[in-house]
């Protein structure tokens, strides 16, 4: 009798608990997002305007696109702090290619290729020499941007071919910009990749226990290398969008963006220690961040106060469920 109970109850409770937890985190985030949306609609008459909302998406879409593969990398217990510098180096390479007379399609190819090379370098150093990725990518963060500065100095590339501005300024349909549509499409792809493929399951397995994953036959290093290359390639793609939106390149482009990207991922419920998190959470977090900054911007809250509010929001959104869970556990213990 006792035997049958454990046989049926244990797996059920495990999966229930996991699903329950996942659902709760995302519902909570969604609830906060809806509240912010309501608050913004009440606080300013300019918020509920399709064009204004569409304009606001431009400010976070490039970062959001990088947050998707970054979430997978962090779930896999690695991190890439060099993404903003990859944007800079890709952008400078595009500038050089544009000077040489390359068309829009060629520029996309150049940017993504440079991103892949940068990601490959990060991944090879991490997997080959076993150096922690945080150390490696702090190094390449300076390295890639350093190369961009050496090439460009205090100059700027401004001669991009006509048609190139579509990537960062064009619209696919009505208020839906190319950038935003691309982000939504990629969010779907990454959702499928993380939650419905073997590749995604291996990512969780490595993040939870790399040694166990290795002994169960997963090629851990190759898997990590693929993720680094993916982050690099998509940083290159983000560079296309940003460069096209700015219509110019300076080596300081996207300065400090790595932290915004990681903030989105962490706010989305991805454990910074690896092993857990979901794509849905990251996408909701992207919208939450976007809505908060846009709403505060409409109220002309000074940028310094805005960073304080976003920092406080990050800490409270992450700690409220933890504290609530601990309180509940304490109450159950008292029973």
């Amino acid at each position, binding site marked *: 009798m006792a035997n049958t109970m454990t046989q049926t109850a244990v797996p059920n409770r495990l999966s229930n608990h996991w699903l329950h937890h996942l659902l709760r985190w995302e519902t909570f985030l969604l609830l906060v997002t809806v509240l912010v949306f309501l608050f913004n609609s*009440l606080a300013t008459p300019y918020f509920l305007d399709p064009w204004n909302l569409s304009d*606001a998406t431009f400010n976070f879409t490039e970062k959001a696109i990088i947050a998707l593969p970054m979430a997978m990398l962090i779930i896999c217990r690695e991190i890439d702090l060099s993404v903003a510098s990859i944007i800079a180096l890709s952008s400078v390479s595009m500038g050089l290619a544009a000077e040489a007379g390359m068309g829009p399609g060629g520029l996309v190819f150049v940017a993504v290729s440079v991103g892949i090379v940068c990601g490959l370098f990060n991944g090879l150093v991490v997997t080959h020499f076993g150096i922690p990725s945080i150390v490696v990518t702090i190094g390449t963060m300076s390295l890639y941007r350093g190369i961009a500065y050496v090439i460009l100095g205090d100059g700027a590339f401004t001669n991009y071919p006509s048609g190139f501005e579509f990537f960062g*300024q064009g619209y696919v349909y009505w208020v839906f910009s190319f950038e935003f549509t691309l982000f939504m499409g990629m969010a779907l792809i990454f959702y499928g990749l993380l939650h419905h493929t073997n590749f995604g399951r291996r990512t969780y397995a490595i993040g939870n226990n790399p040694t166990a994953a290795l002994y169960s036959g997963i090629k851990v290093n190759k898997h990590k290398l693929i993720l680094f290359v993916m982050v690099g390639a998509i940083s290159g793609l983000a560079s296309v969008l940003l460069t096209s939106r700015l219509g110019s390149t300076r080596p300081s482009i996207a300065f400090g963006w790595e932290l915004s990207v990681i903030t989105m991922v962490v706010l989305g419920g991805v454990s910074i220690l690896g092993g857990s998190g979901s794509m849905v959470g990251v996408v909701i977090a992207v919208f939450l961040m976007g809505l908060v900054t846009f709403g505060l911007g*409409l109220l002309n809250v000074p940028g310094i106060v805005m960073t304080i509010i976003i920092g406080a929001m990050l800490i409270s959104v992450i700690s409220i469920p933890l504290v609530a869970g601990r309180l509940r556990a304490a109450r159950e213990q008292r029973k």
Partner: protein
Amino acid sequence: MFKKLFPALTAMMSIAYLAPAHAEDDVRIALVVKAMGIGFFEAANEGAQEAAEELGNVEIIYTGPTTTTAEGQIEVISSLIAQRVDAIAVSANDQDALVPILSRAQQRGIKVISWDSGVAPEGRSVHLSPSSDDLIGRMNVQLAADALEAKGVSSGQMAILSATPTSTNQNVWIEEMKKVLPEFPQLEFVDTVYGDDLADKSYREAVALMRNHPDLDVIVAPTTVGILAAAQAVSDEGRVGEVYVTGLGLPSELAGHVESGAMHNFAIWNPIDLGYAATTIAYNLVMDNATETSVDMGRMGTAQLDENGSAAMAEPFIYDATNVEDFADIF
């Protein structure tokens, strides 16, 4: 959970109603700066508020990113476009990267000007420089003549301490200075040296100047690094009262040297005037009170626009013992 969130929601709503309401007929002018928390721009805001008070029906939105990035300014500007402000006056972090978003602002009927640090002509209608090359050149020579007067001599020698020999604006200013020198016969120009905008090299060059020209009366340094190093060199060499230093510098760095007597006066643009003039120009553009070639700047006179829509505000503002302490707190 809902019980817990309900007070939070009501609290947020009450904040919403606290947000200042503006009268619908007010002209709303956004003063976008390179970054918040910089004394120079806080002072410009002071000038903008002064202009708003003078004009009456103007509301100033003083804003900017936390760090001096183009991306941050674009985010700020897109929220200003969403609020349908009447005018945006921006000191740009990047003259090219802001063009697409500012063009969009203009398409939506917002008047755009740049001030202090400019935007390429397709992104704005007017750019207001704090000063112009010929005004700066003339001012530097005038300051040297003032120094002779302060020393109490009828004629004397002057030398220039510049930045690098390849620095474009330095060379233009030196050229402009040489152009107006004939109008000041009391000044004998003896030498130009280059401190490369490095504190130690500028210091050594200033010391060398005083040794090579024992009768030197004035060192003119149109660079903030050079002027500070030269004033230090004069103090250290014990030549205070014999050699005067002047040029372009920052009040906060030079207040001590004006007090010690190593400097009589110096010049730099006045950020309060700049904020005031930028606001007045933006207001006049909104009110359609501007022509292709000129626009009124209130107490700062009339701005003459060149073919690119650029204008110079005024000659650099002179700082001496009477006002340097007040401005030293600002920038």
